[in-house]
């Protein structure tokens, strides 16, 4: 009798195991089907090119912009030259000011949107996103038209007699920052708006109730509790700002060379692909380090996606 139960149990457990295996196989198959296309896509068009980029950054530049497949560290050594330092520092300065201005302008806007009715704030969000649906090129050209020495702003100021000769508004750091702020403001407002909107109004009331004046309440309660949104805004502005070459190309007029422009130039005019690849790799590493700092400080990657 006990013998029989034993074999019975054995049979049952093997059955159960088989059933489990079948289930897991079926789950795997369906997962592969669902994730397959995007995996193939990612491997083909992201992983392989990035791998090739890293590989290329260790290759040698040949004559006429060819790549000679010979290992070298020269591309990275090249970057330590002072001329490139100034490019990096200029990029950081512009990214810093752009981020500062964007966050200072975007936060009050987020506060205002959080106070609106759901319907109104939805319309404002669409209005905010509207410029993103227009080609960046068109936007930047309109900035050129506005800021030119014979442009809209200058001719207006000349006509009303505020100026005797036109101001140099275009082709300097100022113009680049204006353009950058315009491009990144929507990305900065939305995460800040979402964290301000999530803030429980009872917390603000509690602070006032306990005797804190509005300014104290802002710095002790509202600001700390909406900081994830501000972090996200900083990341979403600062990082793309370093690599975004179109603005400084068109509004900076070659006066302000940014890392993005430098890379662009290596792949086009200079035809030095290995050096461009090395610059790209370094830029990517800087960005990864910053994202790491962001998550270390308590930021979440989901906020960035919002």
């Amino acid at each position: 009798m006990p013998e029989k139960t034993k074999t019975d149990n054995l049979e049952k457990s093997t059955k159960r195991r088989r059933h489990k295996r079948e289930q897991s196989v079926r789950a795997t198959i369906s997962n592969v089907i669902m994730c397959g296309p995007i995996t193939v896509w990612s491997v083909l068009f992201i992983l392989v090119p990035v791998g090739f980029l890293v590989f290329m950054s260790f290759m040698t530049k040949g004559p006429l912009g060819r790549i000679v497949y010979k290992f070298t560290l020269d591309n990275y050594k090249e970057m330590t030259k002072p001329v490139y330092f100034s490019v990096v520092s200029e990029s950081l300065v512009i990214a810093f000011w752009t981020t500062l201005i964007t966050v200072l302008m975007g936060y009050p806007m987020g506060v205002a949107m959080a106070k609106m009715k759901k319907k109104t704030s939805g319309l404002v969000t669409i209005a905010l996103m509207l410029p993103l649906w227009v080609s960046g090129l068109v936007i930047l050209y309109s900035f050129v038209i506005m800021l030119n020495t014979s442009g809209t702003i200058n001719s207006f100021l000349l006509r009303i007699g505020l100026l005797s000769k036109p101001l140099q508004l275009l082709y300097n750091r100022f113009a680049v920052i204006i353009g950058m702020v315009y491009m990144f403001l929507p990305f900065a407002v939305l995460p800040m708006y979402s964290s301000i909107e999530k803030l429980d109004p009872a917390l603000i009331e509690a602070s006032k109730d306990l005797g804190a004046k509005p300014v104290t309440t802002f710095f002790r309660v509202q600001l700390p509790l909406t900081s994830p949104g501000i972090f996200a805004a900083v990341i979403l502005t600062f990082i793309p700002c370093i690599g975004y070459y179109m603005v400084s190309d068109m509004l900076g007029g070659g006066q302000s060379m940014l890392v993005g422009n430098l890379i662009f130039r290596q792949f086009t005019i200079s035809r030095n692909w290995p050096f461009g690849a090395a610059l790209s790799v370094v830029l990517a590493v800087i960005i990864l380090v910053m994202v790491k700092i962001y998550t270390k400080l308590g930021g979440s990657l989901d906020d960035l996606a919002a």
Partner: protein
Amino acid sequence: MALPIVQMVNVEKWYGNNHVVKNCNLSIEAGEFLTLLGPSGCGKTTTLRMISGFELPSSGVVKFMNENVEKKEPYERDVNTVFQNYALFPNMNVAQNIGYGLKVKKVPKEEIARRVDDMLKLVQLEGFEKRRINQMSGGQKQRVAIARALINQPKVLLLDEPLGALDMKLRKQMQIELKRLQRKLGITFVYVTHDQEEALTMSDRIAVMSEGVIDQIGTPKEIYLHPKTRFVAGFIGESNLYDGIVREIEGDEMVIGTEVGVFPALKKQLTGGTVKVNDPVTVCIRPEKMKAGITEPEGFYFHAVMKEKIFVGNLTKMIAVMNNGNEIRINRIDEKDLPEPGQEFFLSWDTEDAVVIPSRSPIALDTADSIEAAAAAEQPEET
């Protein structure tokens, strides 16, 4: 009598076309536990928020110790609030939350630390100083919220349904603890709840609100035994309510005609005003005062049939039906000598136990018809 600590005089509150608080007159005495009780949407939280300063009255006066404060900001008022969902700052630990009120007033660090310690002791949370808020249970959060509000040593503590999120057992325990705390500190508590049992348990006085109006203010006993309006009688505790009219008044006695029949009542049991013959009234008899006799009682009685008996632990709740179809609720602690379901019995009550409430509005037509019908069909059999 001493000066009331908080006074609301002719306070009105409108939200657009919505009249949420109507002519509110309320005097809160120093050191009392006053509860604003009413169903949701009756204006009790708005009333509380006008005391704390989060809402400004549309008209009327709010006074603290004879000083007009209705235009003052919340941070300028000497009151503190325990919020419905605690509203603890998630970016601070327990000690920082409790000490917040002192910190924003720039109290020296050592003093804050000392007073936070005192508060932690008071609410029995010693050793929890460094805890994050999200690591605390509901009951613990509740204690932190109370400690945070009390550290400023307010003259008045406002509590907006503070126990709403707790489970039944914890809620009962906190009710007693809150009451004890209030007695110990001698601070005036103004408490908002929709739970009548909670109000009866804790309050020195209860203000019952309905549709923006304070229907009655009184001790729990007054409110339960002598409800001044039909709403109060129905909202506090269980009751059998019968609309009717005064048929006769003679000396200390009255005869009331209602939809269930005609019966005598006492003039001293009349609440909330005076009545004349033919005035509409509502009679309120609590289920525990109803008598269900198997033998014929003295005085008046009605015939009724037992329909259901429900055992709920400490009570037996019964529903009986009278000959004219009216349902009667009867509660008993013991089950002795009670009719079984289906059995006919004699329904009666002591005239002492029937409260007569004058109606504000004239009686509805169909009710008037059924009163006539009842009077014609079943004359009370007097001995």
